């Protein structure tokens, strides 16, 4: 296995013909990619399909990775583009945040998450569920910053934004997460 190698070394191996070396990259990034796709598409089956698609695209265009950025940043750009395309195709299922039905839907999802929470009863489950309840853009920016360890400049590059806009988006996402936690998990927060 190629686990001891860094990303660029693994990429060089893959490009020189050792296709199995790509498994190292898949193993290293599968959770990050899957978390990001799940945060965006909100459905495990679709998210897994999406994540698989991302790794296949990354493999196909690996020769185009010039190393100007981190491999993870390049990979998350593919995640973003793939998810955007998927969400555009599934547009009829997507509701505006101003839509009353959206809140009803969110409420029903909240009850589902809350029921799940009773079983798990942990602050980790609470924060994961709260992030999952956010809209895809907010969940994505939080995941990129906190879990995928991307800087604001890198997030801006991935999302095609200015660094300042990425910063504002992160602030807003955290504010919405805080509101979500206060409204949906008020009891659990008290227990913390």
């Amino acid at each position: 296995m190629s686990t001891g190698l860094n990303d660029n070394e693994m990429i060089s191996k893959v490009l020189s013909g050792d296709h199995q070396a790509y498994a190292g990259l898949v193993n290293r990034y599968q959770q990050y990619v899957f978390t990001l796709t799940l945060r965006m598409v909100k459905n495990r089956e679709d998210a897994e399909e999406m994540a698989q698609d991302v790794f296949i695209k990354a493999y196909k265009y690996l020769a185009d990775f010039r190393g100007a950025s981190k491999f993870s940043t390049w990979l998350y750009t593919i995640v973003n583009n793939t998810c955007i395309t998927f969400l555009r195709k599934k547009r009829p299922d997507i509701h505006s945040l101003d839509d009353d039905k959206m809140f009803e839907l969110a409420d029903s999802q909240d009850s589902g998450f809350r029921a799940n929470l009773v079983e798990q009863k942990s602050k980790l489950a609470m924060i994961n569920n709260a992030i999952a309840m956010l809209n895809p853009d907010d969940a994505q920016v939080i995941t990129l910053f906190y879990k995928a360890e991307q800087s604001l400049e890198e997030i801006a590059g991935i999302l095609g934004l200015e660094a300042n806009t990425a910063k504002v988006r992160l602030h807003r996402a955290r504010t919405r997460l805080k509101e979500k936690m206060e409204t949906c998990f008020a009891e659990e927060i008290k227990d913390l």
Partner: protein
Amino acid sequence: MNTNNSNIPHTGGTGGMEERLWNYIDGNTSPKEKTGIIKLLDSNAAWKAKYKELLEIHQLIQSSELEAPSMRFSKNVMDEIARVHIAPATKTYINKRIIWSIGIFFIVLVVGFVIYSIGQTDWAAPNTTTDKYVGKIDFSRIFSNTWVNVFMMINVVLGLFLLDNYLSNKRKAFRKT
């Protein structure tokens, strides 16, 4: 941004306070701004309480877990990859010479037209004709047309957009220095 008014010991609204505190927690503050916030945290109970609250959220988010795909995920990807070939790098099949040739062709075309137009001008003719007519043009008639006005409005908006872009780039360059 707030980093510019770090030396002002104002408490600001909740929004401003939150934004500055998030910047402080993320480590995105200048040394001057950092000192200002530390001072506020020492002296102002509201700032201290908000900082504690935001820090708790920050730590909670940091403790969130990554989701794991199914056990077969990696194998599925590798199986799919066996059927795919790595595409050659874009730079290997985009021939820069072709792009340059197209560019040069259009430049030559434009320059050719300009030279031809200049060549057609009768430089010996007196230029009194232009002086005679320029003053007589009735601009009010030209700009009374709706389409012309719409066209001019679009130009003005585009001009403002370009100016804004130019100024924001300048500001960014200035901040970097």
